[in-house]
């Protein structure tokens, strides 16, 4: 079974703090993704990576950065946390197959609260 793990289930931080969210997958997947999930908005893509040291902006990259130094690990960084970044953060991974239709495997999520 594919396993995607996230470093914390719940996190509380203060405004202005630097926050690291870690994601690890154990299936040698090339692609990894970070989403945020907010009620009524579904999932929105923050950043994704299709190879080590590669990263691409998603739909809402402002205020975030990412790091992918190893294939299995993809980190999301909030350089200076703000209250509007309070959200559920979901990490996912996938193996690039035929064009389109790549199933993504999700971690359990990190619920981040910024005070």
């Amino acid at each position: 079974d594919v396993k995607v793990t996230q470093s914390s289930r719940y996190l509380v931080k203060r405004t202005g703090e630097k926050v690291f969210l870690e994601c690890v997958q154990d299936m040698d997947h090339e692609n990894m993704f970070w989403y945020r999930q907010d009620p009524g908005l579904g999932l929105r893509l923050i950043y994704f990576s299709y190879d080590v040291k590669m990263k691409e902006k998603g739909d809402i990259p402002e205020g975030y950065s990412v790091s992918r130094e190893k294939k299995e690990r993809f980190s999301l960084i909030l350089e200076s946390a703000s209250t509007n970044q309070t959200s559920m953060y979901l990490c996912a991974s996938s193996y690039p197959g035929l064009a389109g239709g790549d199933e993504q495997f999700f971690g359990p999520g990190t619920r981040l609260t910024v005070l």
Partner: protein
Amino acid sequence: AQSVTQLDSHVSVSEGTPVLLRCNYSSSYSPSLFWYVQHPNKGLQLLLKYTSAATLVKGINGFEAEFKKSETSFHLTKPSAHMSDAAEYFCVVSWNYGGSQGNLIFGKGTKLSVKP
């Protein structure tokens, strides 16, 4: 451009009655479509996916979905709801970035409630 619209934000059914969760998509080419489910405080789990094979797709837990190109729809159905089906369901369409990487576009979700 690809997009997906879930027509109902909330659906409530009684246990044992049929479930219908509606989804329409827009895609400039033949899409891949998915339904994911999220139970409270859990990650997303794939229910089923359509990738241009059979138009009627069977998934886990008795769910199925039919791809109708003429209606640009991919509605999710189940003949008989169970209490454990209460969750949020996401309809998803894929798009490509730079070749074979499959990025997903999520609908806003439909919360399914099941009454005893």
